[in-house]
C-alpha cells in the first residue's frame, strides 16, 4: 500500500485528483483514509511500484519540500542521495497528525498546520521512528496523547477585572468543558485556581466583554510517551507545560541525534517511545533539551511514571540476557 504523507492532515484539495488517479490506475480502485491522516492507496501491484513512485514526485515536492521546507537530501540531518523518482526516502518518522486547529475551530489555540509543518522539516526524512501529533487545544481531538509527543495549543489567560460584568459564563464554561477552576465571588468578580488551569481558553471564548482574553504569547503543553501497540499501550503523561514554540522546535531538532545515540547509530525499527524507556526519562531529558533555552513560564516534568496497560503478564520480567540497553552496544 502506498501512503502519502499529509502533514497535519491538510493539503491543497487539488492533490485529491492525483490520489484518485493512483487508486484507479495502480491500486484496486478503493481509497483508505490512513489512521495517521495519510492518503492510503491499497492494492498496488509490485510491478507498479516504480511507476507510482515516479507519479508522486510532484506531490512530494509540493507538500514536503515546498510547504514544509523539508531538505530531501539529508536523512536524519546527514547528507544522503535523493532519488526524486524513487518515492519517499524513509518511513521512520511517521506522518504528523493534527486537528484543524484555529484556522477553522473556534476552540483552537494554535495554528496546528503551521507547527506541524515546522516539525515535519525537523523529523523527516529519517529512519528513526517517531509519532507526533498536534492538537489545537487540550481537548485533544487528534488524540495527541497517544503519540510519542502530543502537543496541545494553550494560552495563559488574562483577566481584566474592570471589564468583568459577573455574568458567570466563564465559571459555567470552565466547569462544563474544562477543570472548573473559576468561581464567582461576593463582589461579582471571578476568582481562579491558577494551578489547575489547563490553558484551554474556554473562559475567553465565552466572555461577553473580553474581560478574559488570551495572553499574546502562544504556548503549548506536551505529553510524552503515549502509544498504542500489542505489548504495552499507554497514554502519554504530562511532560511540558506552558512552553513556547521555540522550546518545541529545539526539542525536535535534537530528536534524531537522541535516537541515533540511543540505538548506537543503528536505525533499527523501534518505536520512538521505547527509546525513551530504554534510556530512562532523566537521561532522555538531558539529550532532548541540549542547547534548548526554556521560556520563563515553562514547566517540565521532574520525572514521569507511566502507567502501562499490560497486554501480557510479566512483560518486563525476563532473563538478563534479553534486557535492552541504551547507548554504546556490544557488537554481536
Amino acid at each position, binding site marked *: 500500500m502506498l501512503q502519502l504523507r499529509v502533514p497535519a492532515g491538510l493539503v491543497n484539495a487539488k492533490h485529491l485528483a492525483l490520489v484518485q488517479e493512483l487508486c484507479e490506475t495502480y491500486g484496486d480502485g478503493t481509497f483508505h483514509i490512513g489512521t495517521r491522516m495519510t492518503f492510503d492507496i491499497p492494492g498496488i501491484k509490485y510491478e507498479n511500484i516504480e511507476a507510482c513512485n515516479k507519479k508522486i514526485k510532484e506531490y512530494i515536492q509540493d507538500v514536503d519540500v515546498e510547504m514544509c521546507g523539508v531538505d530531501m537530501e539529508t536523512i536524519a540531518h546527514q547528507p544522503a542521495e535523493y532519488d526524486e523518482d524513487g518515492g519517499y526516502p524513509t518511513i521512520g518518522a511517521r506522518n504528523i497528525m493534527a486537528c484543524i486547529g484555529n484556522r477553522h475551530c473556534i476552540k483552537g489555540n494554535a495554528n496546528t498546520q503551521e507547527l506541524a509543518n515546522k516539525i515535519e522539516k525537523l523529523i523527516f526524512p529519517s529512519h528513526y521512528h517517531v509519532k507526533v501529533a498536534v492538537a489545537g487545544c487540550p481537548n485533544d481531538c487528534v488524540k495527541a496523547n497517544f503519540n510519542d509527543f502530543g502537543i496541545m495549543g494553550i494560552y495563559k489567560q488574562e483577566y481584566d477585572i*474592570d471589564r468583568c460584568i*459577573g455574568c458567570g459564563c466563564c465559571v459555567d464554561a470552565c466547569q462544563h468543558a474544562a477543570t472548573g477552576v473559576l468561581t464567582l465571588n461576593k463582589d461579582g468578580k471571578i476568582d481562579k485556581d491558577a494551578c489547575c488551569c489547563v490553558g484551554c481558553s474556554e473562559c475567553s*471564548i465565552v*466572555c461577553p466583554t473580553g*474581560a478574559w*482574553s488570551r495572553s499574546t504569547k502562544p504556548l503549548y503543553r506536551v505529553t510524552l510517551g503515549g502509544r498504542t501497540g500489542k505489548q504495552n499501550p499507554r497514554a502519554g503523561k504530562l511532560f511540558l507545560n506552558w512552553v513556547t514554540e521555540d522550546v518545541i522546535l529545539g526539542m525536535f531538532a535534537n530528536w534524531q541525534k537522541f535516537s541515533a545515540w540511543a540505538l548506537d547509530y543503528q536505525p533499527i525499527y523501534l518505536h520512538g517511545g521505547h527509546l525513551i524507556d530504554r534510556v530512562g526519562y532523566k537521561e532522555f531529558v538531558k539529550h532532548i533539551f541540549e542547547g534548548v533555552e526554556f521560556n520563563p513560564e515553562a514547566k517540565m516534568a521532574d520525572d514521569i511514571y507511566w502507567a502501562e496497560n499490560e497486554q501480557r503478564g510479566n512483560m518486563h520480567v525476563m532473563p538478563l540476557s534479553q534486557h535492552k540497553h541504551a547507548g554504546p552496544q556490544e557488537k554481536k
Partner: protein
Amino acid sequence: MGHKVSYEQANAAFAKLSEEYEIWAPKRFPKKGRYSDTDMIRYDKVSSVEEIEYKEKSDMPAKEVLTPISESLFYFTEDEYIESKATSKKLLIFMRPCDIHAQHHQEKIYLSNGNFEDMYYKRMNEKVKIVMMECTEGWDTCFCVSMGTNKTEDYAAAVRFCDGELLMDVKDAELAPYFDGTAADFKPEYIEKNQISLTIPEIPNKEVLTKLKNHPMWNEYNSRCISCGACTVACATCTCFTTTDLIYNENANVGERKRTTASCQVKGFDDMAGGMSFRKTAADRMRYKVLHKFHDYKARFKDFHMCVGCGRCVDRCPEFISIVATVNKMSKAIDEIVAEQK
C-alpha cells in the same frame, strides 16, 4: 468647512488637541479577540491617526467611553463620602453614524427618562465632541439603512480616512483653528444600501403582542443562548447597569460604590428582593430584549426603534445568534398570529 489633512498634520493637530481633549477612537488590540489569533477592536485613548482602526468595525461600541463597563461613583468612609472625579479634559470621540444615533438613545435614557438626570453620565456627556467617521461600505452584519441610522448631521467634524491623509469637514468653531491652512472641498458621504436589510414588523394590537410573547419561536433560544450578555454589552444602545458596594478589607464601613454594566440576558438580572423574578429562561430573556429593541421602546417614546442596526450583537454572540434572523422569525410569527385572528 472642508479640509485635506496629511497624517503628519493630523498628528500635529492631535498633539495640540491633547492639551485640551482626550481623543478616543476604535483601536486594535492584537490577539485579544474571542478566538485565538483574532483581534479585539474597542475604544481607547489615541494620540496618533495611525492608532485608529478605521478599516474594520469595532467589536465594542463607542458607549464605553462615557459609560465604561465598570466605574467608581463614590468612595465612602465611616462618616463621609467623596465623589469620583470625571476627566478634566474634553472628549473628542470618533464614531460612525450608527454610534452617533445610539448616543442619542443613551442621552435620552440617562438624562431624561423618568425625569431623572444621571449626573455621572451628564458630567461626561457635556464634554463630548463627535468626530464622525464616514462609513459608506459597512459590513455583512450592518443594517443601519433599515433602521434609518445611516446618516447624521450631528457632528463637530466628519472624517474620511484615505491612505496617508484625512479629508475632513470641520463644523465646530473650537476645532477649526487646529486645521488652519488645510482647506479643501469635502462633504462626507453615507451608506445607502447594506448587504442585509430588515423589515421591522408592526404589532397591530395587544392581543397579538400577548400571543407573540407565548409563541413557540422563542423556545429555540433555550438551547442556543448561553445568557452571557455579549449582545447587550456590544449593543450601542443598551444602558443597563447595576451598582455594587465594594467593601475594603478589614473595615466593613469603608469602601466604594461601583457601577457595572448589567445585562437583561444574564440570569438573575431581574431578581427582586423577596426572591421573585420574571424572566426565568433564556427564551424569556431573548424575547424581552428583541421586543424592547423593536417594539417596546418606540411604543413608549413614540419616535424611533431603539436598535440602530450596528450589528455588533451578531458579531459578538458566541453562539452565532443573529438579531436579523430573529426579527425575521418574529415577523413570520406575527403574520401567523394576525392570520389566525382574521
